[in-house]
């Protein structure tokens, strides 16, 4: 049956005052404080001049440590939460220094894919969100087999892998443009 398609509503920029509408006091807590095995993932959002972006917002979406999503379309992989208070979702506005950070737990592998976190970046000057993924540095074998990383030119793959910077701490800088530009995906 042919249906009439409705035209989707176009995207527009968040503008510089996104904080009024899009920030939550606990937004960066994908898991509650004190969660065993919690890691902090964060970095700096840079523009094409190498300057930090102080009016951006980073959102994250990921599976739980077993690779499951608490969502009707994730049914096959659904189950009782292993991590109490696990939300899967995090959001953090960038500070004056361009920094953002979320507290989470490492996701499990999802089907044939290496553990990963989907990321949306919003900012003044971005007329649509840009989407990237965070992969993990201790997953060399899984990363080498990951079907999406296989589509990325080898020289750009390192930009998608977070860097360990301390115990339970990973760094993932996002460069919107220019040297070391983050790999963005069309979804």
């Amino acid at each position, binding site marked *: 049956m042919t249906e009439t398609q409705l035209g989707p509503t176009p995207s527009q920029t968040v503008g510089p005052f996104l904080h009024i509408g899009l920030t939550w006091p606990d937004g960066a807590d994908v898991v509650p404080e004190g969660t065993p095995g919690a890691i902090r993932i964060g970095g700096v959002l840079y523009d094409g001049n190498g300057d930090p972006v102080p009016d951006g917002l980073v959102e994250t979406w990921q599976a739980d440590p077993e690779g499951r999503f608490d969502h009707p379309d994730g049914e096959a992989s659904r189950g009782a939460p292993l991590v109490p208070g696990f939300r899967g979702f995090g959001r953090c506005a960038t500070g004056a220094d361009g920094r953002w950070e979320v507290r989470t737990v490492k996701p499990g592998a999802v089907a044939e894919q290496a553990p990963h976190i989907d990321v949306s970046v919003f900012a003044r000057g971005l*007329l649509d969100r840009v989407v990237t993924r965070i992969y993990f540095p201790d997953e060399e074998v899984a990363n080498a087999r990951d079907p999406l990383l296989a589509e990325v030119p080898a020289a750009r793959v390192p930009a998608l892998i977070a860097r360990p910077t301390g115990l339970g701490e990973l760094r993932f800088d996002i460069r919107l443009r220019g040297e070391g530009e983050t790999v963005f995906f069309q979804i």
Partner: protein
Amino acid sequence: MTLSRPVGYRSAPDGTHPPLDHPDYRSTAPRAPSQPPIVLPHRLTEVTGPLLAGERIGERDHDLTTQHDGEALGQRIVVFGRVCDSDGRAVPDTLVEIWQANAAGRYAHPGDNWSAPLDPNFTGGGRVVTDSAGNYSFTTIKPGAYPWSNHHNAWRPSHIHFSLFGRAFTQRLVTQMYFPDDPLFAQDPIFNSVPDPKARQRLISTFDLAATRPGWALAYRFDIVLRGREQTPFEEPHD
């Protein structure tokens, strides 16, 4: 290679979304990526997403005119509509977040240093969840236009910023709602960044006399369309 892949979400027709690089809007120059994006086929992470129903809603979040001790200044309006996907299916129980300037065009934000007055009774942030039929409604005040530094004598048309999650990571949308017949459209590079003029019109709310609250508030309807699912292989139309 065969991959376990769920039914994905359909892309918007060309011209629906603005290009990231849009020189008329100057801030895009240092921020738009220079490399073309790599196609990400939708898998489980993309067809799922945060289902943020009631837990994010405060008691006064639907009525921006009564979030403080006194009443907000300005023209009271109801902003309402239906959220559906491109197949016309309602998107129920989804979080809708808005933010806007006050009646004078000033944001209650430390970064806004335009000299228009702040209203101590208006913050400009709201949240609701769509009902089972995808409907939402806010009460607020009509935001004023405001000047910005993009080009000589640049003014943003009155607008309300909207954020929606839908049911999946792929459906996430941040947009702006405009008001009918705004004389500032022609000079606004953000509104005009949408290439397809028909798609651009979908950013403009419609005045709805039937939905006004007599003796109280005018009403504007803003329906929002998120991406729909791809057809399953059996239903795929032949070219």
